[in-house]
């Protein structure tokens, strides 16, 4: 058991686990980490179950103090972490003494970092999940991003905690300024012209500043509808590209609504969601259609660290 206290909250710091699954039929959004892979890796490093709650840190990390000694790890983006001024490696088991201050700064790579503490962060589970959903103010710490003065406890350590310095090199590289994401066409690819599908694969889109945990608005050449821009509302999966009447696609991310009324041209494969979650406003995105076989192979390849340990 240990506690941390937030000195500065950073740009957007939220408690996340793997999400609130099983209640979308009642309109309850899933939420969860923007980079689920990095979240799981962080928990694996400190000996937590992969669904334990971590902190998702966005672009500008927080400043926080460990009030008791704790084992922790940082994965995903490199936001320039320092413990009492000493530069820390990412993807590595670290140890903090009581009173040590974790801060971030300097050049960054990637957009979202995950801080796991051995024992997992203890906040009340809502519908079985500790994930923060900002719009509906559900889960996490009072359903909101962390503020200065907030205190979070970690739970009792049940499993074996890996030794300090153990490192798990990530299989998914961090993007540099942009990334090509692999997609599967659908669920409403027929609602678009053939031209739109070609544009999707050939164009480079830019993530707009009006992007958040719900979704990335993409600027680029418009994607043209063939059967109108409205559908009877249906479910909106993670990583789907919905296209409103403007033709400018929106990539739906962790905090997406459960349903939507725009046609969806394609869906990012699960293996590339980690890459998507590490992109920031201003970064470019390209899309490439792949086979289902390629999608599943990529996913199996990514699972190696979890299978071996």
């Amino acid at each position, binding site marked *: 058991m240990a506690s941390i206290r937030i000195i500065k909250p950073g740009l957007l710091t939220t408690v996340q686990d793997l999400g609130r699954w099983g209640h979308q039929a009642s309109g309850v959004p899933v939420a969860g980490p923007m980079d689920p892979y990095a979240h799981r890796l962080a928990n694996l490093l400190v000996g937590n179950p992969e669904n334990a709650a971590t902190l998702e840190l966005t672009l500008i990390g927080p400043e926080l103090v460990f009030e008791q000694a704790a084992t922790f790890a940082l994965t995903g983006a490199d936001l320039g972490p320092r413990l009492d001024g000493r530069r820390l490696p990412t993807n590595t088991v670290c140890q903090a003494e009581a009173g040590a201050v974790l801060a971030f700064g300097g050049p960054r790579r990637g957009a979202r970092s995950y801080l796991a503490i051995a024992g997992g962060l203890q906040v009340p589970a*809502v519908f079985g999940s500790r994930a923060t959903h900002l719009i509906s103010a559900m889960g996490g710490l009072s359903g909101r991003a962390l503020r200065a003065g907030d205190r979070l406890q970690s739970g009792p350590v049940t499993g074996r905690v890996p030794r300090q310095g153990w490192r798990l090199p990530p299989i998914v590289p961090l993007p540099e300024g942009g990334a090509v994401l692999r997609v599967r066409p659908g669920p409403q690819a027929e609602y678009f012209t053939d031209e739109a599908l070609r544009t999707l694969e050939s164009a480079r889109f830019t993530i707009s500043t009006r992007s958040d945990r719900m979704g990335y608005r993409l600027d680029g050449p418009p994607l043209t509808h063939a059967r109108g821009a409205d559908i009877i509302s249906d*479910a909106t999966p993670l990583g789907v590209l919905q296209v409103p009447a403007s033709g400018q696609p929106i990539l739906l991310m962790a905090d997406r609504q459960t349903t939507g009324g725009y046609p969806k041209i394609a869906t990012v494969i699960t293996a590339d969601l980690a890459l998507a979650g590490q992109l920031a406003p201003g970064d470019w995105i390209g899309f490439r259609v792949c086979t289902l076989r390629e999608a599943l192979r990529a996913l199996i390849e990514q699972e190696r660290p979890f299978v071996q340990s």
Partner: protein
Amino acid sequence: MTVMPLVPPGGFRIVEAGDSALVVEFEDRVDPGVNARAIACARAVAAARHPGVRDVVPTYRAVAVYFDPLRTDLASLGALLEREGAQPAPAGTGAQAPIEIPVCYGGTLGPDLAAVARHAGCSEDEVVERHTSQVYRVYMLGFIPGFAYLGLVDERIAMPRHATPRVKVPARSVGIAGRQTGIYPSESPGGWQLIGRTPIAPFDPTRPRPFLMQAGDAVKFVAIAPAEYARLAGETGTR
């Protein structure tokens, strides 16, 4: 130009939505029978507890099945969806006795009632009369926790949503958007025409049954006076 339907009348199809979701689609129209078929299909798929399935989400005319691709036998999940998708519409529409929801119409609680009356070319009382005379079907929940899409609203009062949505709609506001009506469970942005407010929370995580409505339910609105609204709101702890 005639657009060919993607699903024939009475039929269904299964479409991929990425590598971790399949969608069973029924006829592409808002219809109680089609919706009842989607809801029955969703219940059967959820009840099968297929290994790897994370969530089953019925909507107006489709069922999304979310699964973990590494823990799901796609062939057997596909077979389950083929089997349940092919089931005929259940007898009746599955609706029980309607859930009665009290609403205080107009005034500060329903700021768009006058506009809806103007749109319909009738009195405010007549809008209330038409809104309360219908038994609505809960076609689906979505948007935010506990938001139920109810239909169909009487054509005369079916005013389209605001061109520019309000930044803040108070919780428990009752609105109209075309032939849909619904209650905002929590304060949120929204573009629906607000005609009243209910003292009953559609979603309250502290209740044994957090959600007032689920897909397939029948709902009827009952007009109440401001004094009755205040009394009920006091009892339920809402304001």
